[in-house]
């Protein structure tokens, strides 16, 4: 294990930024989000829940996909994709365990055949440096999904404790990044890290949502859960605003749209939400006409449909963003409590 003195972190950021794009939680106008590091940036590594999750790095909120030039009856398609690995690799720094797991969830969608090359190009060009949590918040429940917040994976895992950032490379990409910054590192820290992990684990175990029971959310119960009468009441207050889907690190839905410009048509994709009424609208009807159905879709997808397609991996990582952000105080915790706690009947 290596360690870097906290007062030298700016040197570390500067060193990485010489050759790579460094994305790191930065406080800007009172909101912390992953942004490109610049000298003077107010880095806030310890912020657990950035407003937007780091999925934005690989699956941006909007992204141009191609251009079309039309002349008379003819169409020319212009590929606007970039090879980020060739152009400029990235480092995504300070990712928490839940958000790292969420990237794994998205990988299974976007890297499945046929591979989404837009996502893949960014993903492959990125070295991910995770940061272990030492001060979990009350809305956190990553442990319910088997995530260890005290030792996230990633190309490099780091721990912040006392005067040092502790650093452990896990992959080839991680080793390469370590080689770049050796001048700033010293050996040591195993004991400090082990101690921090012990202390944090005790905190995690006693969080308010730590004991949520997922055992009823299995493919066998798919139709029973779908038919549950509780959905009506649970979804009654939902505004269909889509906030929960936009802040969620695992929500994958997107729209593809065309935009006319002076230089031709740009086809882009943007985040979409299953909470919106026109999401499933067709010329001859709509397969989900009520907000109850849309609400149910979001949670059934996370807790039953996705796991059923992906060997039991849930598509919620317990980051708690939807718990904090829903204007109506609806969230996945309430759903799990309402539908999950009925194992005995």
């Amino acid at each position: 294990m290596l360690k870097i003195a906290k007062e030298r972190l700016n040197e570390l950021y500067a060193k990485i930024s010489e050759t790579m794009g460094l994305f790191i939680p930065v406080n800007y106008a009172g909101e912390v989000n992953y942004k490109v590091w610049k000298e003077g940036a107010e880095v806030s590594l310890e912020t657990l829940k950035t407003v937007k999750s780091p999925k934005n790095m690989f699956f941006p909120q909007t992204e141009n996909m191609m251009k079309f030039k039309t002349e008379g009856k003819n169409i020319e398609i212009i590929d606007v994709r970039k090879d980020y690995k060739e152009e400029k690799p990235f480092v995504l720094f300070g990712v928490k365990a839940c958000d790292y797991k969420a990237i794994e969830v998205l990988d299974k969608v976007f890297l499945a055949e046929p591979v989404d090359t837009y996502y893949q190009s960014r993903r492959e060009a990125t070295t991910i440096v995770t940061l272990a949590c030492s001060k979990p918040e009350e809305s956190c429940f990553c442990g319910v999904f088997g995530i260890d917040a005290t030792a996230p994976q990633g190309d490099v895992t780091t721990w912040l404790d006392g005067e040092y950032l502790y650093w452990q490379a896990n992959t080839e990409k991680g080793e390469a990044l370590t080689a770049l910054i050796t001048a700033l590192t010293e050996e040591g820290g195993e004991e400090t890290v082990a101690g921090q992990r012990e202390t944090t684990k005790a905190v995690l175990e006693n969080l308010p949502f730590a004991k949520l029971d997922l055992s009823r959310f299995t493919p066998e119960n798919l139709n029973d859960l779908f038919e549950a009468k509780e959905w009506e009441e649970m979804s009654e207050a939902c505004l269909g605003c889509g906030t929960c889907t936009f802040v969620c690190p695992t929500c994958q839905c997107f729209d593809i749209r065309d935009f006319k410009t002076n230089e031709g048509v740009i086809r882009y994709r943007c985040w979409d939400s299953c909470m919106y009424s026109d999401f499933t609208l067709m010329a001859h009807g709509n397969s989900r006409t009520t907000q109850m159905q849309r609400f149910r879709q979001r949670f059934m997808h996370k807790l039953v449909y996705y796991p059923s397609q992906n060997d039991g991996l849930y598509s919620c990582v317990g980051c708690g963003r939807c718990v904090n952000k829903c204007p109506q105080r609806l969230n996945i915790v309430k759903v799990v409590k309402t539908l999950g706690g009925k194992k005995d009947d």
Partner: protein
Amino acid sequence: MIDETLIPKVGVITDIRKDTPDVKTFRVVGTDGKKLFQHMPGQCAMVSVPGVGECMFSITSSPTNEEYMEFSIKKCGCVTEVIHAMEVGQQITVRGPYGKNFPVEEDFKGKDLLFIAGGIGLAPLRSVINYVRHYRENYGKVVIVYGARSKDDLVDIEEIQTEWVNEPNTEVYLTIDRPQEGWDGHVGFVPSYVKELGLDPNMTAVLCGPPIMIKFTLQGLLELGFDKSRVYTTLELRMKCGVGKCGRCNVGDKFVCKDGPVFRMTELDELPDEY
């Protein structure tokens, strides 16, 4: 850079047929004059008009046609209206093929086949029927029941009346919803016609058409003694990507674009009722 399925190919419209007041069939080839890509019966493609939008359509021509692809398109909204206004020579974009095909090389082989279509539902079926005609010796008896609102709404009626009816070991039954001048064929809805025909329940059946027709026809077939595991249909949900990523067409643990659009009735029974 490697291929990206979401980036389409340019296609050229080489022929347009007006089938019914609101359905036209478009023949499409690549800019090199060749077929854009290979497909299997029941698969679909995303067709787009840049600046207007992209829509999913069944590839209605048979895979055995080596020269071109055809789409039968019903005018019902922004994109389909613009396509209907197009002339021969106009370029569009196409990507695909998407979805699972009918099991023509597996479960259908050696079987007696019953095809039941309503309205534009003929589009996916035409591809299978012509495939079966091409490899006729691999399949048993073929029975086709096709209905539409009126005689003018029967898609591809010329091909049906001049070619399909003359195939060996093939029966074709046409019906329209209401009596009409110049029509001396059967009158009545598809589901009741199917029951009247007293079809052999050992056939493998394929149903395509509006959801309401599928529902009642299936009921009729079950009453006749058909087994759900040998009845197939296609689903139609809103689609954007076509490859199981954008989330649009999700029902239960399936994505219709990738796990369908062809489903066996027994598979549909396991899905939540949301399609």
